């Protein structure tokens, strides 16, 4: 390895740190009235962990890791579908006053 090469881990760490800052500023701009939908939508998007489950469940041959993967897919799918659907349901209820 060259002395100047940067371990890819460092790049990922950099992305992680920057994403925390993005999250910090974005979440402070969320109106308190929408904190419950914020929780349900963060729940749904954190289930992007399903990508890891898909890779585990991907191979054709049956093995232990594939079973773990399939269970994880089902669990994450409950969250993804449930989280986005319930967020949608809640957001549809927030209405402005009808004037006039």
């Amino acid at each position, binding site marked *: 390895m060259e002395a100047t090469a940067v371990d890819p881990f460092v790049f990922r760490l950099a992305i992680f740190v920057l994403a925390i800052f*993005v999250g910090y500023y974005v*979440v402070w701009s969320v109106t308190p009235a929408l904190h419950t939908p914020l929780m349900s939508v963060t*729940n749904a998007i954190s289930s992007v962990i399903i990508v890891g489950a898909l890779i585990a*469940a991907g191979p054709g041959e049956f093995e232990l890791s594939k079973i773990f993967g399939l269970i994880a897919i089902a669990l994450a799918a409950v969250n993804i579908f*449930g989280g986005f659907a319930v967020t949608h349901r809640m*957001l549809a209820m927030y209405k402005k006053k009808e004037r006039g």
Partner: protein
Amino acid sequence: MTANFAALAYVLASVLFIMALRGLSGPETARMGNVYGIAGMVIAILTTLATPGVVSYAEILAALVIGGALGTFIAQRIEMASMPQLVAAFHSLVGLAAVLVAAAAFYNPAAYGIADAAGALKFVSRIEMSLGTIIGAITFSGSIVAFAKLQGLVSGNPVVFPGQHLANLLLGLVIIAIAVAFCMDVDPRWFWAMAGLAFLMGFAIIIPIGGADMPVVISMLNSYSGWAAAGIGFTLENTALIVTGALVGSSGAILSYIMCKAMNRSFFSVILGGFGGDTAAAGPAAGEKPVKAGAAEDAAFIMKNAGKVIIVPGYGMAVAQAQHALRELGDLLQAEGVEVSYAVHPVAGRMPGHMNVLLAEASVPYDEVFELDQINSEFRTTDVAFVIGANDVTNPAARDDPQSPLYGMPILDVDKARTVLFVKRSLSPGYAGVDNELFYRDNTMMLFADAKKMCDDIVKALG
């Protein structure tokens, strides 16, 4: 699909997730934000499905359909008042999924490209995997306890015993020791011991926390579920997962901070627990001092003749499912020419924003609902403050009495209103076990009844 193309697709998904959160800055943009979130998820899933090595589409589709159908069904059926339980349940699923994905990566590192030349798990991946597994397992079991407390399956009272903190500390140290052993020697027994003890840890750290501190607990578990996802993201070298985990982790952390600040408690005092059951253990004997009690007709008369009414809802409204009757009450008053607005304290209810969702469910326009600092100066020019199911967040002792356990907590200054109508089932103190001097003031009228029944009766009296 090349690895570079996939990596770019994951970046796009991450950007869409950021936009989903950004949308929540206002109710109008939030609906579009949810669509961005869904788009990001679809991109992430399709990209992964197109990865070479993912070939068993039938089984994957079956798992997706089963989980998706169940999730959609629950989301359509759930009562808005039960939202805290639902969110807790969803957190537990993220935690369990994280543990399962870590286990899958442990048993088949080659599929994720994280095996070293000898086919064993790379060292740095072991550390990341340990973190993801431990946090995931704690999130899973901790959320189950939170769910059980919120759902009323177990008592919401804190469960404390002598030596608890020491026991938890020891458990934590053992888990760290096992994680180190796992990183040195990748034996499945270390992996499962680590996961198993972390499950135990999740139970142990949430049981001492009382029901009324659940807004902090739910936010904290939200944060944990994000950090678990990020840990797994590092293991799998997946940027979408790392970014999302960081977003969710910081989101939950900020919410925890806001909740703690709104209770004037330090995060550590909440985590150490022992405070805030559903029913106060030993409140001071009430009933010695005279209170003025009134009936629905009195309340209706007072409010009808008022110029300005501020409604202060709390957890009691959620329990009684009184939001619809309350909105009807508000509408009738507005029809009489009374100016009606709603004041929401950040920790009213069992999760951040709980009251806002319930009021929205009852079709209260969101521009009539105000936050603490937006509305607090209005009370002094208000004729009637109608407090329904809230207690500690209105207790003037928090502002005036340095001896009070509540002292320093920001409160809604309902006592500044000309008249306070306080709907409550009895004189029992709030969760903090502190008597509310507001009950005994001359300008306070207590309305002893269930929140929903009282609203219904006032509506009848107004009609």
